């Protein structure tokens, strides 16, 4: 069964985000392993989270203009999860993602300009306009793809982990999926397969409490941690609005997988700010709930409070990041809007590498 880390609160665990007001320097500087995050990494973490937030907030506006084709699912609110996890990964490591994939892609290093262009359906997009928001992939950066099928990713991650193991690349593979996807049979099967094959895999259930308009209070029986760790996988549950908690747990998880001990499970809990998709009126959640999450569960505010409170970074530095990021997103939108659309001749290319 699960090791003793299961449910363990961890150094920066879920219990702590409420304490951010009364933080002491020691709380932030050192995680459970006594490791201090270098200043550069703190900035990087903030910058990545801000990039994701700004990207998504801006997209919400762009969708309102009617110029974004199809449907986009925004990751705002959950930035600390992708960021805290992916900071431990390099390009040789693979992640799978979901319909709500922008945050994972950004945190994994996929280029902002390409992503924005892709979402606008332009030839300059990451997938040359053929995939769109729900299929952004970038194998060079270890991004196996967003996925339009709930539960589609975990099996793929077993495969990427098998590659890492078989070819001894030193890499690991990590699946992000939601609380809704947690119920899907493919996810359960992947837990089992990863254990049976002892794969260097990490499963990250990003629990925003809701799948489309249905609450996981209704749709998810039993306890997520109990269900995952019953496969014999060790696991941790952390506050997904607290970058430090995620980052710390992810280090353990990824080190476990990388060292050949088999898969590891992470449960990160953080709210979804927008409706299921940009434009969803989100009537199934009360105004109070929605207000409260924006007020009290903002990973960026929490991060700022912590690092400022501890005197690690100053507000100016963070504001500078905000300004830089705003510029990046402005430029990305402008570039995407100005970019050419794929030519009709591309309609049937790229179906096969070679076809007769």
């Amino acid at each position: 069964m699960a090791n003793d880390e299961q449910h363990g609160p961890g150094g920066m665990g879920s219990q702590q985000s409420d304490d951010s007001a009364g933080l002491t320097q020691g709380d932030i500087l050192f995680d459970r392993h006594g490791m201090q995050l270098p200043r550069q990494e703190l900035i990087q973490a903030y910058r990545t989270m801000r990039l994701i937030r700004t990207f998504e907030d801006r997209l919400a506006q762009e969708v309102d203009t009617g110029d974004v084709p199809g449907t986009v699912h925004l990751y705002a609110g959950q930035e600390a999860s992708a960021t805290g996890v992916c900071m431990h990964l390099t390009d040789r490591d693979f992640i799978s993602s979901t319909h709500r994939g922008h945050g994972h892609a950004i945190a994994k290093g996929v280029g902002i300009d390409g992503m924005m262009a892709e979402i606008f359906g332009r030839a300059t997009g990451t997938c040359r306009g053929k995939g769109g928001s729900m299929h952004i992939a970038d194998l060079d950066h270890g991004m196996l793809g967003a996925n339009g099928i709930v539960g589609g990713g975990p099996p793929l991650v077993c495969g990427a982990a098998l590659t890492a193991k078989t070819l001894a690349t030193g890499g690991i593979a990590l699946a992000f999926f939601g609380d809704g996807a947690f119920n899907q049979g493919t996810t359960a099967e992947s837990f089992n397969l990863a254990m049976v094959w002892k794969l260097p895999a990490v499963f990250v259930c990003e629990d925003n409490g809701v799948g489309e308009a249905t609450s996981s209070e209704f749709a998810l029986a039993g306890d997520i941690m109990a269900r995952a760790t019953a496969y014999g996988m060790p696991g941790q549950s952390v506050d997904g609005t607290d970058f430090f908690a995620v980052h710390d747990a992810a280090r353990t998880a990824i080190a476990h997988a990388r060292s050949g001990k088999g898969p590891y499970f992470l449960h990160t809990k953080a709210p979804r700010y927008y409706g299921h998709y940009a434009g969803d009126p989100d009537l199934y959640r009360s105004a109070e709930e929605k207000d409260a999450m924006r007020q009290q569960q903002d990973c960026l505010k929490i991060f700022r409070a912590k690092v400022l409170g501890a005197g690690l970074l100053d507000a100016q530095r963070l504001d500078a990041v905000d300004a830089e990021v705003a510029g990046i997103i402005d430029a990305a939108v402008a570039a995407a809007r100005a970019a050419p659309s794929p030519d009709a001749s591309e309609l049937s290319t790229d179906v096969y590498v070679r076809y007769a």
Partner: protein
Amino acid sequence: MSRKSFRQALNEGLRQEMRRDPRVVVIGEDVTGGAGASGDQDAWGGAFGVTKGILGEFGRSRILDTPITESAFIGAAAGAAITGLRPVTELMFVDFLGVCFDQIINQAAKFRYMFGGKTKTPLVIRATYGAGSGSASQHSQALYPLFTHIPGLKVVIPSTPYDAKGLLIEAIRDDDPVIFLENKLMYDDMGEVPDGSYTIPFGEASVPFEGKDATIVAFGRMVRIAKRAAERLRLLHKIEVTVIDPRTTSPLDEDTIIEAVKRTGRVVIADEAYPRCGMAADISSMIAEKAFYHLKAPILKITPPHSPVPFAPSLERHYVPLPSKIEAAVKSLFDGSRENLH
């Protein structure tokens, strides 16, 4: 009779059957929308709003939200159907058949046969299909050829609000498993729909356009596109076209198609599914076998290319056959240069 949207027509048909028969239950993801959440408990009425209001009228024992586990709930619907309920299940996007295909093709479709005719499986699976909404490769497919291929399934594709209601009621009363496909671009289409209950039998085509020179066969949203092509052919080229909408791919109204082909001698099948082993191929081959001697020209299929559905609008625009393409195909059947078709 009054004007209703495709969506309203479906909702009305469903409610009328639920009132009529307490064994009819609705099952699917977010078919109410809000289960267990802090706000409105009927916030969605399904991802496309078709089942909205059913919760208020019938309560949670008749409309069941589900976890995102299609195999479990489609399979449950199949199990419920052979034990006394008449479930109407919503699969949201037909593309999701991939995660529950076994329960549809190896379980529900085959019960009656495997069990020697001793059971019936009154199950309806509703799903949306179709490209054109910028939903990319995994949310835009047609896929009805996959169901049509499987013996034991019936497959329905309504093309008007009127047909949608009548065919849905028929599907619910039918004792076999029925796949009921709704084009996701058509929900707001308006049309005259009787207020009362009525059924449209399966395997009976409608013929929304009559002409003596050529025949176009089309399903679902392609019917409208075919009609547009037919109008242009009449106005611009003086070619009078019959448009046949078989309404169900399985059973297929072969007689109406064959009769029209015999009369017109020329036929184009305009379909939005993939071409290989597709719907157009199916109908073409039926004609090539059964009306061969009446054909004056090759049987043409106008379909998307053998390619997934692209995301970018600049590509997707060319994916589903346009009226102009159908028009050109029909016109080509009258060209002298027949051999040059390919």
